[in-house]
């Protein structure tokens, strides 16, 4: 593959920075963004809080122990998704090849755009200036010949950094960079590599392939390539991205549930969320999966594949509860998830049976009302009093398409 120019944009402490921009009284202070639920954890910490040792994923108690002066703010997911979509729109002014990696990260393939917009430094400065002007936010940008190195580069200067890795500089840099700094090498893999005496990317790149393959299987060769800074994965815009293989929702409950009726009500809520999204995007699925996480965090999933394709909420609910009824729950339940997979495109399937046809028409009418007046304007009576779930933005969230999940 010929030399490419890939740019990675990483918003700095995204949720916390949005909160600091929204409320000037928070600027310069240690801020932790938390969810609305009772069992919430920190979704982001501002750089001032990070300086005190506060990290994403900490409990509120841990954060307060590390940083007694931390200001905790309940996050506003709609503010974040709107901001993220606006940032992606700015990025698309430079190239159609924008891959949204998460709500606060994106890759751009600038290879074909340099003659139009100038060198990557200029484009990076323009992007930073436009994001700062429009939202008051800073980002770190990395530019390199591939996605792996562009992401590594954006991590090198934070906040508000710009790092450009030129091909000639890369081998020397990789000699000193710890292997764990590469995206895809987590703490567990890093420990396994350390046991082999591999600490830096350079050492990983030179390590005998036979040993890596014996230890890590097919991943071994990929690891060696990563150690050498090689990555030919393309930047994949959403419109040509992988076909969506499933539609699912999960919710961490405010309190652990043991009563079957309580659990069923939550399943109905999840089934409605899944069914509504599947119907909106014209897909139906044959496989329904129920995920249960116990109070001790042990998690399992059970799936059932049907003969017919479904996307009506009551059918998804029936399948999920049928799975639940076969289970003997060993502990109270902390999290529930419902997923519809084995998808195919399918518009509404009219039935010859009057009762079935009535249910379909009711679902269509509910969807029309909710499309016009907003989510859950009409819903099942038994879930009207449900307000105890945590609301988080799933990693798979994207600014448009079937992955554009409504957030609260």
């Amino acid at each position: 593959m010929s030399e490419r120019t890939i740019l990675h944009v990483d918003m700095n402490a995204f949720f916390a920075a949005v909160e600091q921009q929204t409320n000037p009284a928070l600027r310069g202070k240690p801020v932790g963004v938390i969810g609305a639920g009772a069992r919430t954890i920190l979704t982001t910490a501002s750089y001032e809080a990070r300086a005190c040792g506060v990290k994403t994923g900490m409990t509120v108690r841990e954060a307060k122990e590390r940083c007694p002066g931390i200001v905790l703010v309940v996050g506003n997911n709609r503010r974040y998704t709107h901001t993220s979509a606006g940032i992606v729109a700015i990025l698309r002014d430079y190239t159609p090849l924008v891959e949204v990696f998460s709500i606060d990260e994106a890759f751009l393939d600038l290879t074909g755009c340099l003659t139009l917009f100038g060198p990557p430094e200029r484009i990076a400065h323009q992007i930073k200036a436009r994001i700062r002007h429009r939202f008051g936010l800073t980002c770190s940008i990395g530019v390199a010949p591939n996605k792996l190195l562009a992401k590594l580069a954006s991590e090198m200067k934070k906040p508000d950094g710009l790092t450009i890795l030129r091909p000639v500089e890369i081998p020397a840099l990789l000699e000193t960079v710890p292997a764990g700094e590469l995206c895809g090498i987590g703490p567990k893999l890093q420990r396994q590599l350390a046991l082999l005496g591999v600490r830096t990317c350079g050492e990983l790149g030179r390590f005998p392939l036979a040993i890596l393959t014996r230890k890590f299987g097919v991943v071994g060769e990929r690891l060696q390539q990563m150690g050498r800074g090689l990555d030919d994965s393309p930047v994949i815009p959403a419109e040509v991205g992988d076909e969506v293989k499933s539609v699912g929702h999960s919710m961490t409950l405010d309190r652990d549930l043991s009563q079957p009726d309580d659990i069923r009500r939550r399943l109905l809520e999840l089934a409605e969320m899944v069914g509504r999204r599947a119907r909106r995007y014209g897909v139906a699925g044959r496989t329904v999966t129920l995920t249960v996480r116990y109070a001790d965090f042990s998690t399992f999933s059970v799936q059932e594949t049907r003969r017919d394709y479904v996307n009506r909420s009551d059918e998804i609910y029936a399948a999920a509860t049928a799975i639940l009824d076969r289970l003997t729950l060993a502990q109270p339940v902390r999290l529930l998830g419902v997923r519809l997979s084995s998808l195919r495109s399918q518009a509404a399937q009219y039935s010859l049976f009057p009762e079935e046809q009535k249910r379909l028409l009711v679902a269509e009418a509910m969807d029309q009302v909710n499309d016009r007046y907003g989510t859950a304007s009409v819903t099942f009576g038994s879930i009207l009093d449900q307000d105890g779930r945590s609301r988080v933005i799933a990693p798979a969230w994207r600014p448009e398409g079937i992955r554009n999940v409504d957030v609260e």
Partner: protein
Amino acid sequence: MQRIDEPVRVGAVFGPGSLIRPAWFDWRRRKYVVEEVTYRWHEQEGSTTAIHFTVTAGGALYELVFDTGRQSWVLAGQEAEN
């Protein structure tokens, strides 16, 4: 932020283009002059778009919401400790 959710009278500048900038609002018989629009974002509720603005006025932070369907303003909340 303390929820208020009360209809309010708002003076706003529309334009250039699609920009909207609230300049002042009346609430409980007092006029508040907007010092800074600190953030704005859109929320979709069915077919209606609501434009949210957080603004500072008189040392406090407020959230104003413009319902584009009804063409009406609501004071959604107030953060007193600013």
